[in-house]
């Protein structure tokens, strides 16, 4: 009986209104708490300061340049990471021997926190685009490879044998069986992998890069401006949420043809 009442309360406009009210209350409380110095200003700043910071960053164009740089690294890194992971994953998925040989190395690499490789990449390449893209690839490649390999192994063996009998060569198999199987996984995992890629991108920008949202955050830290840090974090969150929504939409489109299970 209680669920029906909840359903009425928790639907449509009422819910939207309640959520908006919640945001307003939280922001108002935050402002009051900051004004009255109830909270650590070094951590929480205040909504008005964050708003001003957002305004000035956007007016000077710094924010947009940083955003562009982050998106570029994210996009290039993600594509390269997917490609590298696909190549490796298909290879170890198809060849049992290869999997036996390099599998242990990949499992080891999977347990290493790969975001920590950045210092090495920076020592190699300096502070340009290369170490950032490389980090994104490094963070993604193992995850993608392991999952693609699992996907390749799940392909119906009977289907493969049937195609072989009918004269399909290795290329035909890749083109008509393995590629579609794997592309389904790429689509359905895109939201997770892009999330990893964004963490890696911004993480790499934090550590002394000259451009990107992460470097704006790092400037905020050096100049003791928590308002700037929070402002940029909000932009990063907005970027993350919009990319996620976009991918969710694309994913729904992509799997629309599939029979519902």
């Amino acid at each position, binding site marked *: 009986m209680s669920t029906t009442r909840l359903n009425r309360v928790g639907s449509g406009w009422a819910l939207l209104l309640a959520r908006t009210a919640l945001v307003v209350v939280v922001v108002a409380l935050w402002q009051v708490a900051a004004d009255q110095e109830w909270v650590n200003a*070094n951590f929480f700043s205040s909504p008005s300061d964050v708003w001003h910071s957002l305004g000035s960053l956007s007016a000077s164009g710094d924010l947009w340049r940083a955003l562009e740089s982050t998106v570029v690294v994210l996009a290039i890194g993600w594509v390269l990471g997917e490609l590298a992971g696909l190549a490796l994953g298909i290879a170890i998925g198809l060849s049992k021997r290869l999997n036996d040989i390099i599998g242990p190395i990949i499992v080891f690499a999977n*347990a290493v*926190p790969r975001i*920590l490789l950045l210092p090495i990449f920076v020592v190699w390449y300096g502070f340009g685009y290369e170490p950032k893209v490389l980090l994104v690839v490094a963070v993604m490649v193992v995850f993608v490879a392991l999952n693609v390999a699992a996907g390749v192994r799940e392909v119906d063996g009977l289907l493969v044998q049937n195609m072989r009998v009918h004269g399909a060569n290795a290329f035909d198999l890749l083109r008509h069986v393995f590629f579609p199987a794997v592309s389904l996984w790429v689509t359905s995992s895109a939201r997770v992998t892009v999330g990893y890629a964004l*963490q890696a991108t911004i993480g790499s920008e934090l550590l002394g890069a000259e451009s990107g*949202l992460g470097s704006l955050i*790092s400037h905020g830290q050096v100049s003791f401006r*928590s308002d700037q840090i929070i402002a940029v974090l909000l932009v990063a969150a907005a970027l993350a949420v919009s990319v996620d929504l976009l991918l969710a939409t694309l994913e729904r489109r992509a799997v629309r043809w599939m029979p519902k299970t």
Partner: protein
Amino acid sequence: MRKRWLNRSATLVLVVAFFVVWQYAGQANVANKLTIGTPAEVFRWIGDWSSGTYTDGWSDLWTTLQEALLGYLLGTVVGVSLAVLIAGVDVLARLVMPFVAAANAVPKIAMAPLFVLAFGTTVACKAYFVSSLVVFISFFAVFNGLRSINRRYLDHVQILGASRWWTVREVYVPAIVGWLITSLRLSWSWSLAAAVFVEYLSSNEGMGHIVQSGQESLDAATVIGALMIIAVVAVCVDAGLVLVERRAKEWRPA
């Protein structure tokens, strides 16, 4: 059996070949020696580190582990409490879940500078940062778990006369512990990475600080050596957690 043995040795050959090429490349300066070091140097550094020639290395490792552990505990306690509260109160879940999802989408690594700014270079600062990552992992593990508990099972238990306390003790708590164990490996890989990351950003102790100081003095052996130690520790912790996970799942039907 013989084939398996062959493949294992092939793996070993591959790893050894990697180190040989690396040593050669470093020595012959194929790539800049300053930037890649040589395995010989790296292993010498690791030897110095473990024997305490280099300023007591084990205490740095202990600091890092402490930060990761404290952060893990704090994040888990907060995450589980929030999950129980929000999953228990339906209205609350409807109200706040979109915000939780949005907060989870924030690249949380990027919050490290905020913690450094607010809490300085203390162990607590690192633990807070670690907990800010763990909290989401444990929250979602437990929240989704609580939501998936079979209603009919709860109804049965109630009809058979279980008290509220009994239900909590015998149904909810074991389930929550189960989900926490399932999320242990993920939490710990993030805990360690986050602790080292924030140390690297700003700190005067811990493995991340060693990496950072090595980078400042352009000492590739230190950077790579310290990262290797972290990697080995991470792999060992992960292997240990796999055992814990297997142990905990033993009694369950497949």
